[in-house]
C-alpha cells in the first residue's frame, strides 16, 4: 500500500543532481586553490606559526695584550625573567621576589605589565643582577615558580686596566649605523662596537649569533625542541691580540692618575703602540651590560671629558718640541750653518711687539746645538726669519703633520700644519706678519698636533726617517681556519735628510736629557734622547710636552707625553717619560735575567 504515488520527472532529478555536483565542484576548486596553488606559501606560514626562534648571543672575541695577557674578556650577565603563566602572583611571592631583587612590589608589577607579550613569553624584570641574587632565587625555587634567569655574555676587564677610550665599548647599534651599507646584516637592538678597538675591529670581534628553535603552540607555550631542525650554536668572535703591553699600560695609567694627559708609547720601528693613555678616563666595565642612564649622563656631561681620547683626538700646540722641524729645515735647506749664533737677551723685538724667551734673563750666545739643548726661543725667532715658511711647512708635512696617522682607533684628529696658503686663507694675504712665523716656529699659534702624531714624529727621529703607522691591533686568530692573521701597517720614510743632519739632531736630543731641559727624563744606565715642549694656552697653565726615545735590546721605544696644564715640559712631562723609560728598562732587565737564569744556576 502506498500513501500516494511518486511521479517525479527526470528533469527535476537531473537538475537537483547537477546542482549538488556543481556546488561540490566549487568546493573542490577552492580546495585545489588553497592546497595545490597556494600550498607552498601556506606551508611557510604554518612553519612560522609553530617555531619560535630564540637568538643566543655570541660572546665577542677576547682581546689579549702582546704577551697574551687578557685585556678584555667576557663574563655572564644574569637577567631575571618571569613567565606569567607559571608565576603565582600572591602577596607572599611578590614580597619574596621584591626582597631578593631589592625592588618595590609596585615596580616589579609595572615591569611585568609593561613588557607583557603573552602568557608564556618570559618577561625581563631585572637586568645584570649579581650571583648572590641568582643563588637566592635558586634557594627560593619552590616559593617562586615561573621566576627564571637567563644568561648572556657581556664584556669584562679582569686586569683592572682602564684604557677606556681606546678600547671603546659595546652598545646597541644606532639608527644612523643601521641604515649604512656596512652594517646591513645588523638588526635593531643588536650590539655593536661604538668606539675605539671595539668599533675598529667590529667585524673581527663580533661573534655570530646562534639560534635555538623551540616548538610552540598557539598560546606561545613551549612544547620542546623542533624535531626536524637543529639548533645553531653561537660562534664567539675571533680572539685578538693588541700591541699593548698590559703591564706598561697599567703602570702609566697609575702614574698619570689625577692628571689630564695623553700619552702614546710605541715601537719606533714598526709603529706598534705599547701603551696609549688618555686621562681622565672611566671604568670600561660601566658599559659591560647596559649602561645606566645616570652613569651615561655623568660621563657625557663631565667637563673633563673622560670619553674623549686625548691621545688621538686631542689637538694641542706642540710647543718647543716643534723647534726640531725648524732645525731640520735650516740644515737641509742650508739656510744657516749649525755654527750660526744668536745672542739671547731673554726677548726678541719685532716692530713694536716683544717676543719673550722662556728664560727671562736670556741664554747668552747660542748656536743651533745649544739652542736645542736649552730650548732657546730667541734663537728660533731669528732662525725662522731666515727660513722660507713654506720650506718649514713642507718639512712638517714630510713628517705628516696635518694629516691623520691612520692609527686604528676610530675618530682620530688630523691636527693643523699651517703653510703660507693656510695663513693667506685664514688672515688674508696681508693679514699676517712675521709675528705669526715667530709663533709657529716655537710651536705656538695655528699649529695643532695630537700626541699620537708627536709619537710618530719622535719615532721618525729615532729611526732616521721611518714613518710608521701607529697601530694598536696586532693580529687575530681566525676561528674558521685557525690561522693567525697579522694586521698590515702602512710604512713610509723620509729619504732626503742627510746623515749629518740626523747625527746632529740625535746628539742635541741626547744633550737635552743629559744637561738640558729634559733632565727629568734621565734613566740610569740607558741613554734617552728627547725634547721638551711647553705650549702656552689661553685657558690656564701651559700644556707640558715631552717627546723622546730610548734604544735597548734592539728595540727603539718612542713616546710622546702631553700633560694638559702641566706647566712645563721639562717638569711633569719629562718626569713621566723618564718613569716610563725606567719601567721599560727594568722590565727588560728582568726579562733578560729570567732568560739567562738557567745558565747561571
Amino acid at each position, binding site marked *: *500500500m*502506498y*500513501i*500516494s*504515488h*511518486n*511521479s*517525479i520527472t527526470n528533469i*527535476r*532529478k537531473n*537538475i*537537483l*543532481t547537477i546542482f*549538488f*555536483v556543481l*556546488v*561540490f565542484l*566549487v*568546493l*573542490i576548486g*577552492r*580546495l*585545489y586553490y*588553497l*592546497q*595545490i596553488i*597556494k*600550498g*607552498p*606559501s*601556506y*606551508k611557510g*606560514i*604554518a*612553519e612560522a*606559526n*609553530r617555531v619560535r626562534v630564540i637568538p643566543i648571543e655570541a660572546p665577542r672575541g677576547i682581546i689579549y695584550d702582546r704577551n697574551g695577557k687578557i685585556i678584555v674578556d667576557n663574563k655572564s650577565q644574569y637577567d631575571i625573567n618571569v613567565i606569567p603563566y607559571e608565576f603565582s602572583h600572591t602577596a607572599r611571592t611578590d614580597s619574596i621576589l621584591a626582597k631578593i631583587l631589592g625592588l618595590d612590589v609596585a615596580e616589579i608589577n609595572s615591569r611585568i605589565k609593561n613588557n607583557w607579550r603573552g602568557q608564556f613569553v618570559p618577561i625581563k624584570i631585572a637586568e645584570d643582577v649579581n650571583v648572590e641574587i641568582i643563588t637566592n632565587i635558586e634557594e627560593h625555587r619552590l616559593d617562586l615558580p615561573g621566576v627564571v634567569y637567563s644568561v648572556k655574555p657581556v664584556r669584562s676587564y679582569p686586569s683592572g686596566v682602564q684604557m677606556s677610550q681606546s678600547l671603546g665599548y659595546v652598545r646597541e647599534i644606532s639608527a644612523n649605523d643601521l641604515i649604512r651599507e656596512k652594517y646591513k646584516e645588523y638588526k635593531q637592538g643588536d650590539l655593536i662596537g661604538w668606539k675605539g678597538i671595539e668599533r675598529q675591529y667590529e667585524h673581527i670581534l663580533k661573534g655570530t649569533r646562534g639560534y635555538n628553535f623551540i*616548538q*610552540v*603552540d*598557539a*598560546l606561545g607555550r613551549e*612544547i620542546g625542541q623542533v624535531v626536524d631542525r637543529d639548533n645553531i650554536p653561537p660562534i664567539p668572535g675571533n680572539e685578538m691580540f693588541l700591541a699593548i703591553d698590559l703591564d706598561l699600560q697599567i703602570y702609566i695609567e697609575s702614574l698619570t692618575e689625577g692628571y689630564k694627559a695623553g700619552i702614546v708609547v710605541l715601537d719606533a720601528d714598526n709603529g706598534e703602540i705599547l701603551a696609549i693613555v688618555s686621562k681622565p678616563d672611566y671604568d670600561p666595565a660601566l658599559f659591560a651590560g647596559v649602561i645606566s642612564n645616570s652613569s651615561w649622563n655623568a660621563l657625557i656631561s663631565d667637563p673633563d671629558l673622560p670619553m674623549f681620547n686625548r691621545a688621538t683626538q686631542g689637538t694641542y700646540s706642540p710647543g718647543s718640541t716643534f723647534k726640531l722641524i725648524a732645525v731640520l729645515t735650516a740644515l737641509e735647506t742650508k739656510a744657516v750653518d749649525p755654527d750660526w749664533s744668536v745672542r739671547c737677551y731673554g726677548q726678541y723685538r719685532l716692530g713694536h711687539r716683544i717676543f719673550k724667551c722662556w728664560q727671562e734673563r736670556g741664554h747668552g750666545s747660542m748656536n743651533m746645538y745649544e739652542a736645542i739643548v736649552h730650548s732657546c726661543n730667541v734663537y728660533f725667532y731669528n732662525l725662522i726669519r731666515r727660513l722660507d715658511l713654506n720650506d718649514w711647512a713642507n718639512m712638517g708635512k714630510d713628517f705628516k703633520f696635518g694629516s691623520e696617522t691612520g692609527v686604528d682607533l676610530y675618530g682620530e684628529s688630523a691636527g693643523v700644519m699651517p703653510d703660507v696658503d693656510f695663513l693667506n686663507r685664514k688672515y688674508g694675504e696681508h693679514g699676517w706678519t712675521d709675528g705669526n712665523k715667530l709663533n709657529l716656529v716655537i710651536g705656538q699659534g695655528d699649529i695643532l698636533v695630537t700626541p699620537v702624531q708627536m709619537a710618530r714624529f719622535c719615532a721618525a727621529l729615532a729611526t732616521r726617517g721611518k714613518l710608521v703607522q701607529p697601530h694598536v691591533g696586532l693580529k687575530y686568530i681566525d676561528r674558521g681556519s685557525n690561522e693567525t692573521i697579522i694586521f698590515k701597517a702602512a710604512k713610509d720614510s723620509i729619504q732626503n735628510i742627510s746623515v749629518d743632519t740626523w747625527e746632529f739632531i740625535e746628539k742635541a736630543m741626547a744633550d737635552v736629557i743629559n744637561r738640558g731641559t729634559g733632565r727629568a727624563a734621565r734613566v740610569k744606565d740607558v741613554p734617552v734622547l728627547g725634547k721638551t715642549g711647553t705650549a702656552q694656552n689661553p685657558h690656564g697653565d701651559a700644556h707640558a710636552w715631552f717627546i723622546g726615545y730610548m734604544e735597548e735590546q734592539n728595540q727603539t721605544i718612542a713616546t710622546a707625553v702631553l700633560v694638559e696644564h702641566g706647566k712645563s715640559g721639562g717638569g711633569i712631562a719629562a718626569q713621566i717619560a723618564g718613569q716610563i723609560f725606567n719601567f721599560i728598562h727594568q722590565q727588560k732587565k728582568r726579562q733578560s735575567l729570567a732568560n739567562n737564569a738557567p745558565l747561571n744556576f
Partner: protein
Amino acid sequence: MRRSISKRINNFLNSFSNLNLAILVIVGLLCLFGMLSIYSASLNMEGSFFEKIIGRQLIWLVLSGLVAATIYFLQKKLIYDSAYILYLLGFCLLLLPYFLGSSVAGTARWITFGSAGFQPSEFMKILVMLAIARFLASTSSSNLDFKFVLIPTLLSLIPMAVVLKQPDLGTSIIYFGMLFPMLYWAGARLFHLFIIIAPILSIITAFNFYTFFIWVIIVVIILYLTKEKLRVSLTVMLINLSLGFTTPFLWNSLKPYQQQRILTLFNVNADPQGTGYQVLQSKIAIGSGGLFGKGIARGTQTHLKFLPEQHTDFIFSVIGEEYGFIGVLVVLLLFLAFILICINIAYRQKDRFCSLCMIGIASIIGIHVVINVAMTVGLMPVTGLPLPFISYGGSFLMTCFILVGLALNIGIDKQY
C-alpha cells in the same frame, strides 16, 4: 519454523540493495576519517581513553549505530503516521531549555540529564523533514498550488524562529534549507520558491544601497520573465521593496545590545582572537597540507592548537592538513556519492512520502557538508555547523545515524 527463519534472513539480505550497501560503506569510511581526525585533534588532551573526546565519540558511535539499526527495522507506516506527533513533541522539547534555564556558554541549546546533555534542535532537523515530507506526500506533484507551498514553509519557519532565538544560525539554516529541494521535488513552481526566498534576500541586501538596487532589478527581471498576473507581481514587488526600505530604519531603531544579539547570530563575535582568526588558521592548516598532507597525527596546526574548534566545526581542516588534497577530495566525493545515491533512491521510489524523505535526508547532509566546508575554506562566514559523521558531537552523530537508518529503511522498496 527453521525454514521460515532462514527464508526471512534470505529475504532480509535480498532486500539489501546494492545502493544500501554503498551507503553503509560510505558512512563507514566517513566515520573512519572522523575517528582518525578526532584522534589526531585529541592527542594533546589529558585523561584516560574514555575521558578523551575520542573515547566518548566511540561510545556515541556505537550507540548511534544501535539507534540506526532500530530505525532500520521500523515500519514505514509507523514513521509516516507519527510524523506530525513527533514534530509537535520535538517542538516542545525545543522550547524546553527556555523553561529549564540550562545553557552552555549563554546559549539555550542543551537539555541535560546529569552529566550527559543533548540538543533537541539536532533531532528536530529529522522531525521537520518528516513533517514536511508527510504534508507534501498528500499533495499531487502535477500542480502544486501556492497554499501547499506555504504550509511546509511554516513547518520549517516556526522551529527556525525558536532556534534563531537560541541563537543558532547554523541549525536554522538547515531547517529552512531543506525546504527548497523538498518543495522542488514535490513539484513546486520555481516562482513560488522565489517568493519564499525573496524577502530574506531583500532584508540582507538592504544594508547596502547598491546591493539592494541590484537585487530590485533582479526581482523586476524575474517578475517580467515569469509573466505572473499583475496583481501577484505587484504584491511581491511591494512586499520586497517595503522590507528593503524599512530594514535599515528598523535596525537603527534597535538598541545596541539588541543589534549585538542579532550580530552574534552571524557569529561575528564568536572570534576569540580577532577578526578571522579561526578561518585564517583553518586556511593555513588546509593550505599547508598540500597534495598529500602531513600524515596522520602530524599536522602542526592541529597539534599545536592553532586551530580552535578543531574537533568540532573545523574538523575538516584537520583532514585537509593531515591528508592533503587527496584526503579532502576523497571525503568530498564520498559525501557527494552519498547525496547522489539518496537522490537516485528517491527517484526510483514508488512512494511519494519515502521519495521526499530521501530528498530531505540528502538535503540535510548536503547542506551541512557544503556550509561546513565552505566555512573552513573561507568561502562563507562562520555559522557553526558540524561536518556529518566526522565532527565530534554526540547529538549530531546520532542525528546523522538516524538519517542513515531512515535512508536504509526507505531504500528498501518494501510495502508499508
